[in-house]
Structures are given as C-alpha cells and as structure tokens.
C-alpha cells in the first residue's frame, strides 16, 4: 500500500476557528431578572422597611410613594414581603434541588456504573419513595418535626432524589458502555477516577439542566405547600404564602395574589430559559456525530 503523508499547511491549522455564540435578548432579559431577584434577596436586610410591621389603618392600601406596591391584608408592606419572600423561595428552591442532585446523582451514577445488586436496591428504594404520596409525606414530617424552612427544604430535597437518580443512572448506563470508559480502564484508571473524571463531566450536563428545571419546580411546589399552610410558618413570608394570603381578598385587592404570582412566574421562566441556553451552549457533544 502506498504511503500518504499528511501535509497540512501549518498556518491553516494554527488558529482553529471558534464559533461565535449568540445568546439573544430573551436570555439577557432572564439573566437581568434573576440578578434583580438575587440582589434583592441578598440585600433584603438593608431595606428601610420591615415585612412584619403592621399598619392596621393602611390595610390593603393601594400603591403609594411610601409603599410602592401597597399593603397587604394586615397592613404589611407588600414590596418588603415580596423581597423577603424571595429569600425563602430562592433558599428553598436552590437548596432542595442541591440535596437532590448530590444524593440522587451519586446514587444514580453508582447504580448505573456498578450495576448488580446495588442497582436493584437503589432503584427499588427509589420506586418506593416515588410511590409514596408526596403531600402525605410533607404533612407527616411537618406534623412531627414542626414547620421550619430547614424541614421544608429537606422534604422537597428528599422528594427530588428519585428523579435525579433516574436521570443520572440513565445517562451513566449509556455512557458506561462507550469505548472511552473501556479505554480508560485499559489505561489503568481506578473506578473512582472513571466515575469522577470520565463519567461525571458527561453526566453533569443533563443533570445540571435537570437541576435548573428542579429549581423552577421546587419554587412552585414550595409555593403550593405554603399556600396549603404546610410551608414556612407565619409571619415569615414566601411567595406561595403571599398568594395564599392574597386569596382571601381576591375580590377587593386581586393584586395581593397576582404580584407574587407574577414574580414567581417570571423567576421560574428565567431559570428555565437560562438552563436551556446554558445546556445548549456548554454541551460539547452538540458538534459530535
């Protein structure tokens, strides 16, 4: 057979072309909204007004120069409650999926990589957890351990574990049979190294996209639980409990329910938009065959 030597012009290969990435105005709007919410939540304690000071004469007062978004049914400043509520919603909304992604992701990867009895055990126990009605679990835990932000976060976190486990396991199952894993083994990599260096970067992408979706869902679920009175204890405000409280005066002052609802809607939408865009941008496999 004839030998063909590669003769690529050095200059051509020196600067591999980088694709310019377009993000679009929607992405930036979402980022701006998220920054605003995060900044407000972080700087809430610097605000000159309190979310719990009541002014009984100003109940359901319309927006004014002093109270930009008006007052709620108990005469508390709506804007202050909204901002303090952002703290709770974001804390729970971020911490619960972090519990889910850590425990669920680890279990899923181990189950998908090692298979065997461990996998059966993990999948079985997750099925049990999935079959358990989440509302009953939330009721039972709050009744037993009391209503607190920590308990709420833990409940929502634990409820998220099975979904994260399934995403991680499914991704690991398909990846663990790919040749690069065998190649890593052939190069003398340990199980820990294969899991952390070869598989984790691959599994992390779908898991992170799912995480952002999980944040959005958790914020909504926390709202629903607070609406039902299972969320944060009063007088602490969260967006969900604000909607719940606003429901009582829906005919007189509908804005009391709508303002937190719109805030929640925009925040959840931003998380989804940013999540989708980031996934599309950071996935180096998009260019693969």
């Amino acid at each position, binding site marked *: 057979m004839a030998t063909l030597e590669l003769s690529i012009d050095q200059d051509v290969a020196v600067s591999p072309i980088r694709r310019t990435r377009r993000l679009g105005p929607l992405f930036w709007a979402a980022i701006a909204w998220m920054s605003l919410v995060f900044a407000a939540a972080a700087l809430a304690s610097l605000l000159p007004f309190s979310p719990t000071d009541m002014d009984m004469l100003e109940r359901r007062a319309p927006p004014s120069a002093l109270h930009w978004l008006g007052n709620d049914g108990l005469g508390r400043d709506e804007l202050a409650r909204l901002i303090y509520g952002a703290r709770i919603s974001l804390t729970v909304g971020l911490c619960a999926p972090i519990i889910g992604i850590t425990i669920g992701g680890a279990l899923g990867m181990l189950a998908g990589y090692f298979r065997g009895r461990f996998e059966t055990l993990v999948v079985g126990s997750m099925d049990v957890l999935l079959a358990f009605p989440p509302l009953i679990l939330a009721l039972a835990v709050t009744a037993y351990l009391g209503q607190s932000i920590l308990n709420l976060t833990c409940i929502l976190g634990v409820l998220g574990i099975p979904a994260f486990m399934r995403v991680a396991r499914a991704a690991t199952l398909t990846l663990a049979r790919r040749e690069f894993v065998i*190649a890593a083994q052939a*190069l*003398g990599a340990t199980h820990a190294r294969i899991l952390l*260096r070869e598989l984790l970067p691959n599994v992390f*992408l779908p898991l992170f996209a799912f995480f952002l979706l999980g944040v959005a869902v958790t914020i909504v679920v926390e709202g629903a639980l607070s609406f039902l009175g299972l969320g944060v204890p009063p007088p602490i405000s969260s967006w969900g409990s604000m909607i719940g409280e606003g429901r009582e005066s829906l005919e007189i002052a509908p804005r009391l329910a709508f303002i937190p609802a719109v805030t929640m809607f925009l925040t959840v939408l931003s998380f989804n938009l940013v999540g989708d865009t980031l996934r599309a941008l950071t996935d180096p*496999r998009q260019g*693969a065959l």
Partner: protein
Amino acid sequence: MTEPVLLSVEGVAVDLPTPRGNLRAVDHVDLTIGAGRTLGIVGESGCGKTMLSRAILQLLPKKAKLSGRVMFDGQDLVRLAPERLRKLRGRSLAVVFQDPMTSLNPVLTIGTQLVETLQEHLELDGNAAKRRSAELLAAVGIPAPEQRLAQYPHQLSGGMRQRVAIAIALSCEPKLLIADEPTTALDVTIQAQILDLLAREQRRRHMAMILITHDLGVVAGRTDEVAVMYAGRVVERAPTPALFKKMRMPYTEALLAAIPKIDAAPHTPLPAISGRPPDPTRPIQGCSFSPRCRYAAGQCHREKPLLAQAESVDHQFACFHPIQVAAGVRA
C-alpha cells in the same frame, strides 16, 4: 525468534452466558509474541478477535468466564491482583480501539485526557506532562499540537482522533500495544497513514504490537507473524512471508480472495465467502469451517482438526485437506 517472549497466551477460552445458551467466543487459543515483534490477528467479524484482545487486557464483560493463562512479562494477568493489574495497564500494556469517535471522552479536552494519563502513570508535574503531551501529538503527526491540546474530540476529524488515541496509548511507552481494528472506522486514505504511523512508532519504541484486523492486506507488510482466527480458534499461524507464500488453510485463502482487487474489471463479482460463520452457541462437530469450505470431505464434518505443524516449525494450521498448491499472492 530470538527475542524473549513478552506475552504468551496459553489455552485461553472465553465463555459468555447468553439467553440462548453458552457462547464460546474464544476457544483454546495459544499465542506467543516476542518483545518488539508484531503479530497480526486476522478473521472476519465475530470470530473472537476482540474478545481475545479483551481477554489479554482482562477487560472482559463481567459475566464472561475466562480460562487459561495470559503470561505477560512473567506474570499471569488472569490471576494478578486488581491493583497490580491496574498499574500494568496503560503503563506496560496499551490499547487502541476501533472507533476513535467513541474511544475519546467527548467532554474533556484532548490535553486533559493526555495529561491525566501521564500524571497517573509517570507522576509528572503539570507543566512537564503538558510539554510531553504536545511532543506526543507532534510524534503522531498532528500539526499545531499546542493548540490541539485545548480542543475537544468533536473538533477533530476521525483520522486526527485516532492519532490522538494512539498518542494516549503510546504516552507511557508501553511494552505491548494492542491495536484492535485501528483503521476500520476510518476512510481508506487515512488507513494507510495510521497503519504506517503505528508501524513506525512500534519500531522506534521497540514495543511489541498485536494488530487485529479483518483485512489480510493490512497485516501483509506490517507484521512479523500472522494468526488467522475462525469461530474462536486459531486456524493458521505462520510468519507473515511464509503465510503469504504458501497458505495452507482454505479459510485463509478465502479471506485473501475476498479482498477486492484494484485492477479487476468493473462489475466483477466479489468472491465472498459463502454462508455464515457458525452459531457460536451451538458448537458443531468437526471442523468449524467445513460447512463453508469447498475442499471439505467426510472427515472434516466428523472430527475437529488440531493445529499441526507444516513444513517449518513456525507454520501451523488446523486442516485435514490443506491447500497443496502455492497460492499466487500479490500483497
């Protein structure tokens, strides 16, 4: 062969349990390869070539059962402690896989994949490992290696990726390189380049190489010895020149005849081997090639021929009716 024996495969058999019964993928294979020598393993798809290479590396699927011994450098790999085996892989034993599209991690840069292997086995610090990675990429014929280190596998062509895979395999100066159909997934013009690259690096580094392929043409000029496999068994084994001068096993002849000739007239039918390889879950009596062999006679269907010596010590084949006439071969 004057070189000391580096790897000797002794009576290796691999059984895979399947829903349809036990599948014998590799059936008592004996092979030896000396330090710095090259061995070609040739056979059609499903004849057990890949399973044999995985058996040597101890990377068989979990359910597979392996018997026999794989002696590498005086140690039996089958019975070696996992930790020592792990240290041996990559360091002394390396492998290049068939498909460079899947054998590189898609989400890590080429640099990361090379550097980590180097750090793992040679305990180099970051900068030294990076310098050496660039040298390795240059050695396998990748232009602008420093820039390539920062790229992801999907930014490279198939041939480039296979060069990277070879660079990773060569990174720790292994004593034995197993190339499992390294060019099957590449187009023909790249094939020759990759094979020549492998041959060049093999000579330069004085490492032994097992070249697994289904193409007799590939092993022709590039190996010292050839083993032809069929249905999990080695059916003919000889030094490469001897094999091409005087092949004895009808299967080898059929394999060679199945290579398309570049100077054949257009629309010449390709002389394919009729029939299919036997179902490995149902072992057949007699020679496993007999149903497809044009020389097969009564004895072939009843008894299994054993690997026996031909004229020279090195030339072995398993056939009752070996080809007598010298096959005219253009390699």
